[in-house]
């Protein structure tokens, strides 16, 4: 089994940390969308 998460440090905006109650996700290229109930839908940019 590959477990990359155990050794790769990642960066993420605080915005995602403040997000709660996520119902759905879609990823397209460098964009990631999260559906957050009454907080609306948030669009994130991903860097690889």
């Amino acid at each position, binding site marked *: 089994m*590959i477990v990359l*998460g155990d050794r790769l440090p990642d*960066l993420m905006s*605080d915005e995602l940390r403040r997000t709660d109650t996520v*119902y759905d*996700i879609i990823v397209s290229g460098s964009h990631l969308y999260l559906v957050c109930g009454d907080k609306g*839908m948030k669009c994130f940019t991903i860097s690889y």
Partner: protein
Amino acid sequence: MLLFVSRRIINYTYRISTTCRRQVKKNTVVGEFSSVSMAHKMVPSLITCNSLLKTEGKYYYSVNLSADGHVICGMNGKVKVWDAEKSDIKYSTRVEGHMHDIKENGDHLYGALQHDDQLTVVRYDRQLTNRDTVVSIPYKTNQLSQIDVRYREIVVTDWDNELIKLYSSDGEFVRDVQLKDAKQPYGVRLMKDDCVLVSDWEADSVTKYKTDGSGEIVWRCDDRLRYPTGLCVNEWGFIFVSCYTGDKIYLLSPQGNCLITHCQLTKTGCVTA
């Protein structure tokens, strides 16, 4: 003579070590490490929030992308098609109830609309101007359900009965598939290989099932997953899974291994998974 023998020994040793190095390099590139390097490319190094779509008083349930790059949102009382590049609403329509999920299939959008004790699969044109009912499913409780549509097949999750329901795109019932060891199946994705991915937020798992009626499990991932909700598959087959509590995004390999989980978010935005 001694010098000649020494050179032969050195040459022979060099050939062996070179062969070994080549072998190691070959194994590294061609062997198991190719999947690791592929997985590395899939792991986001930075995620930043750059826009937000929000309507006061509305509750957002689902998101999907249309073939022309627009974002389709299902919420309570409304469906919206959003042009993310221009931050502009392209189309919008009112609904009675909660649009738990909406997916594109060909020239139509298919939605899972929950109202009272009934889930209705509805079908729109791209401009959301015309709507017809594909199928109505009575529910015991106000459960949340996602749908997926692929070619001429619709799948709906039913957490009351721990199963998925399969219909044709015209609403003809095909079969129920009882999901083994399921508790509250929610997110669903139809796959190319007559299988379906199902997230189960009560069982803390994502499972790949066969859709042939046997409900046979192809693989199950419950490694570190907590309250998985929606899921999507990118062009390389890697699976992104959202988490109900919002502090994690899971990335699974096409074989169902949990690759990364963002779980330790700091005030500076740094995260050590």
